[in-house]
């Protein structure tokens, strides 16, 4: 039997092994995102106090306010009578710059992301309140109790003919086009696939599918306990339900996956709104 000292020594020497250097590409990715990642100002900074005013100063300030209000009111009336520009004339509202989709980026707001390494496809979309970024390719509800409700940006290189046996590489080709990918997903018999709609997202042809994983399968017998349609997230440990949008972005298939296993009707509606708000820059 090992003594405590043996175990501690073994653990310490084992922890000393392995990589330590952070790849430059990771560091570069962080530095690239700084301009789009606003810093959160400290809330503990002391609040600046206004100096205490004497009575004369208060009267002077009140008079100044009255004069200013009168001036603005006069200007407004003049503007409405003559057609000259008044202070309420509409002026172009500046469009806010989208924020970078990173972990913790919280809605509501407009966010953009380039989720695929080595590719420049950029997605911009409106994220509602109650949702947040999980990474540059993942959006989910803020509450972790809602696990099983998420929107993912993916690219898929192949499918598993048996999603329950996913130890190796995917063995089913998905071709090179969006139509090929849709056909490959529809041809699988390990789960139920339904083509629900053909539509356009930001003008790009899109096929919408619904996948329902089998309910009569013992998932504990699958590789790692997961049922995996392709090599990558999401993986299913229970009968899951996913919506897929396969977007043909100038010949390149892009996959949007909504895990709606635990989604409420409101979540589903919000996912639809996010997808339909997408602006795609190839």
């Amino acid at each position, binding site marked *: 039997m090992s003594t405590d000292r043996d*175990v501690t020594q073994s653990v310490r020497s084992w922890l000393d092994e392995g990589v330590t250097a*952070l790849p430059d590409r990771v560091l570069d990715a962080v530095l690239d995102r*700084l301009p789009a990642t606003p*810093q959160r100002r400290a809330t503990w900074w002391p609040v600046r106090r206004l100096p205490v005013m004497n009575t004369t100063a208060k009267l002077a300030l009140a008079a100044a306010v009255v004069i200013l209000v009168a001036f603005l009111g006069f200007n407004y009336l003049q503007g409405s009578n003559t057609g000259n520009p008044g202070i309420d004339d509409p002026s172009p509202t500046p469009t806010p710059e989208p924020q970078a989709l990173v972990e*913790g980026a919280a809605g509501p707001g407009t966010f953009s992301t380039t989720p695929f390494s080595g590719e420049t496809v950029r997605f911009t979309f409106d994220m509602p309140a109650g949702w947040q970024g999980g*990474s540059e390719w993942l959006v989910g509800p803020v509450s972790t109790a809602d696990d099983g409700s998420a929107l993912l940006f993916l690219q898929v290189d192949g499918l598993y003919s048996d999603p329950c046996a996913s130890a190796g590489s995917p063995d089913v080709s998905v071709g090179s086009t969006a139509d090929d990918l849709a056909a490959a997903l529809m041809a699988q018999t390990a789960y139920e696939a339904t083509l629900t709609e053909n539509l356009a997202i930001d003008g790009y042809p899109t096929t919408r599918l619904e996948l329902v994983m089998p309910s009569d399968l013992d998932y504990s017998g699958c590789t790692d306990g*997961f049922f995996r349609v392709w090599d990558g997230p999401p*993986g299913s440990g229970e009968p899951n339900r996913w919506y897929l949008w396969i977007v043909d972005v100038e010949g390149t298939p892009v996959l949007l996956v909504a895990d709606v296993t635990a989604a409420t009707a409101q979540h589903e509606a919000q996912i639809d709104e996010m997808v339909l708000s997408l602006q795609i820059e190839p």
Partner: protein
Amino acid sequence: MDTDLVTRAQHGDEEAFASLAVAAGDRLHAVAHRILRDIELAEDATQQALLAIWRDLPQLRDPARFDAWSYRLLVRACYNEGRRSRRWTPNMRLLPSDEPMQADGSTLVVDRDQLERGFRRLSIDHRAVVVLHHYLDMPLDQVAETLGVPAGTVRSRLHHAMRGLRAALDADARPPAREAAQ
């Protein structure tokens, strides 16, 4: 850590932050890698942590505490990656055995495998305590401060984690039942 760099980065100086990130990136990645036991997850966690450091840096009151504070954000990022991996990326890969094999000992290799299995059974909470204490040599009260939990909780987590790892090692040392009966 250069506190002047920290202060400049707190005021939005991206170059100062780049220097900080270069200096801190390797140690953060090393810790993430040891907690998560997966290279890609560790890279993602480190990236998320560095962005969180940039975002929240103005809220750090004492620049001299940058190192400990950055570990707290890193461990938080590891929780997130670990939680996500359970659902979406269940295929945790074993670490590549790029270390030279010990010429004298299959025992060390066996220990390594057993420790790997035992460690993977631990929660991220328990792994973080083991790594901060036994890899970074952080005293337990500092581990508690870094993780934002009471010192008693840290001691309890370390105790249970080490007991689990010891059981993993002893399980391998135990002879098979038939052998033991002879």
